């Protein structure tokens, strides 16, 4: 075998130009596939990172009605849905991989909120003591909520940086007062995502926050919430889990538990709890980008097919050219298998070489695209291995016919040609 490989390199080297031209189809095909796969991979990783985050593994579990998130901005308290109890909270906390649970009530479109003459149309939250730490918010100025705030049902709020812009025109809001549902509330602090999670998007809301399309959010203690809104609103739930991979299963388990415990007649209710699974959404986005790229891979495969046919063609020529050599070898005792292997090795070495050159050019091309078009790329080692193995396979498949032809060559015919 080693001798065959040495022979193959000798053959390829002695016809440099021809070998390169023959490999071109394989090189282009493999390079295209590596480039495409690297960009898919890069894009996918970016999507995943943006949507799921690298460290802040939070799953939001929300009340749904007929499959849509139930928003109480326009709806009454839903029938047959209980308020989440401490008992349920403890059960949620005991789900595998769950680190922390937060309960909160919300309005996606706050109404009747004013600062001086400006009205606020962002989001309104009634949050428990875990909320800020679950989502990774930090108090940027002023203070957070204290036990006294919760116990005294104090009319205090925190605002996020978007609300500072939209409602306070960028002024420092701390100690200013806002009017919510006709009551006066004092702003005690400003919150923002902590640095370590800063570029991390943990929910669609955060995504919008980061895209700066939101007017921001105002938070009040959940004990204060009934003052402005209603008693006994069923809460939504945010759970923080210990790893990104556990998000899907923990989210589903939490959603099932809540549906079971909070919905009076779960089998016949139009309400249920669903986890807003970022991993799943990311995967859907990834599938979309993959399916477009699958088509590109098909096109690249055609190049490989054409390359393979080119290799077969050249190998047939090579067999014809080397009739005398093959004939002599057979005459002095080379068996069919040996001749077959010699030519198979040669075509496999040729295409593998093409594959390796293709991989290298693909990586270079991907980097170029990445730097020119700001598309993220990620070179995956398995893709490289598969590409090289695949190109070797092409050599074996398309080299088969010429090799068989060589092995079956009649030595007399071969020796007659002088």
């Amino acid at each position, binding site marked *: 075998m080693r001798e065959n490989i040495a022979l193959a390199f000798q053959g390829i080297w002695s016809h440099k130009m021809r070998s390169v031209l023959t490999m071109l189809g394989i090189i282009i095909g493999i390079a295209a596939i590596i480039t495409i796969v690297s960009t898919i991979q890069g894009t996918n990783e970016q999507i995943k990172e943006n949507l799921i985050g690298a460290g802040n593994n939070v799953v939001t579990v929300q009340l749904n009605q007929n499959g849509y998130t139930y928003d109480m901005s326009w709806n009454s308290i839903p029938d047959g849905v209980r308020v989440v109890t401490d008992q349920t909270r403890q059960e949620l906390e005991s789900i595998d991989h769950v680190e922390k649970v937060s309960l909160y009530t919300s309005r996606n479109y706050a109404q009747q909120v004013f600062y001086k003459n400006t009205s606020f149309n962002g989001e309104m939250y009634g949050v428990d003591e875990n909320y800020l730490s679950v989502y990774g918010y930090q108090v940027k100025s002023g203070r957070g909520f204290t036990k006294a705030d919760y116990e005294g049902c104090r009319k205090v709020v925190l605002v996020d940086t978007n609300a500072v812009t939209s409602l306070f025109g960028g002024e420092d809001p701390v100690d200013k007062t806002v009017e919510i549902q006709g009551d006066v509330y004092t702003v005690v602090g400003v919150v923002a995502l902590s640095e370590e999670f800063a570029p991390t998007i943990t929910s669609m809301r955060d995504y919008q926050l980061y895209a700066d399309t939101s007017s921001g959010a105002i938070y009040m203690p959940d004990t204060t919430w009934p003052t402005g809104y209603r008693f006994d609103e069923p809460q939504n739930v945010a759970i923080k889990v210990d790893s990104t991979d556990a998000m899907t299963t923990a989210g589903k388990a939490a959603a099932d538990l809540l549906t079971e415990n909070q919905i009076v007649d779960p089998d016949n209710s139009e309400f249920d709890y669903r986890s807003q699974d970022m991993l799943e959404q990311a995967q859907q986005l990834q599938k979309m980008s993959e399916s477009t790229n699958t088509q590109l891979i098909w096109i690249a495969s055609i190049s490989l097919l054409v390359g393979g046919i080119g290799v077969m063609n050249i190998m047939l020529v090579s067999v014809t050219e080397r009739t005398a050599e093959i004939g002599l070898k057979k*005459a*002095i*005792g080379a*068996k069919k*298998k040996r001749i077959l292997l010699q030519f198979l090795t040669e075509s496999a070495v040729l295409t593998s070489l093409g594959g390796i050159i293709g991989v290298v050019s693909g990586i270079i091309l991907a980097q170029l695209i990445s730097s020119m078009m700001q598309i993220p790329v990620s070179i995956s080692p398995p893709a490289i291995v598969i590409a090289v193995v695949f190109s070797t396979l092409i050599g074996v498949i398309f080299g088969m016919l010429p090799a068989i032809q060589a092995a079956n060559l009649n030595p*007399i015919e071969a*020796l007659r040609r*002088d």
Partner: protein
Amino acid sequence: MAILTLTDICKDYQQGKEAVRVLKNINLTVEKGEYIAIMGPSGSGKTTLMNIIGCLDVPTSGTYVLDGKDLKDLSDDALADIRNTHLGFVFQSFHLLPKMNALDNVALPLLYAGVPQKERRERAAEALKSVGLEDRMTHLPNQMSGGQCQRVAIARAMVGKPDLLLADEPTGALDSKSGSQIMEIFRRLNDEGMTILMITHDAGIAECADKVYKILDGELHTGDGKGGSTDEEA
């Protein structure tokens, strides 16, 4: 002891629609240690006969027994084995592999016989030495004269210690001086016990053999030169 026995060997070639009989009822026995020349004009069927004896081709009819073994119905690979271990070939146009040096060319049959690399090189070097080419081992065929190339080819034929050396017009492509060098080597090999079957259309070359047969239009005749009897009279 007979190395080979041909009995009623015929060979037909299809030419267009009709079959042309190129070899007609050839009977031939070669004893161990004989040095035989087969002479005949071009197109008389010499090479065809040589190919059959060399197990490169199969006869249309007749039996061929080599070293006591009937070669009928042997597979291609079995025939390859016989060529490798029992026979040595020398061709008119040398048929050396152009990209291999003399040593590698000579060692090639041993590769197919499964001899380990070190021993291959030693035996090839020895064979080259015996044809007087110990100083040409690393030369490529195109760096050597025709006579030297043919000596390399003889070394290659002899390296596997065959029972029979087959030579098809071994001097056909050579000048007379190189030709007689080749004949000297054949003479010496025969003296050392090698059985040789040589084909030529040159009477002067045929004279070097102990026994001469003539082939004419596919029929084998006893030669009028030296040598003994054949099975066939014309």
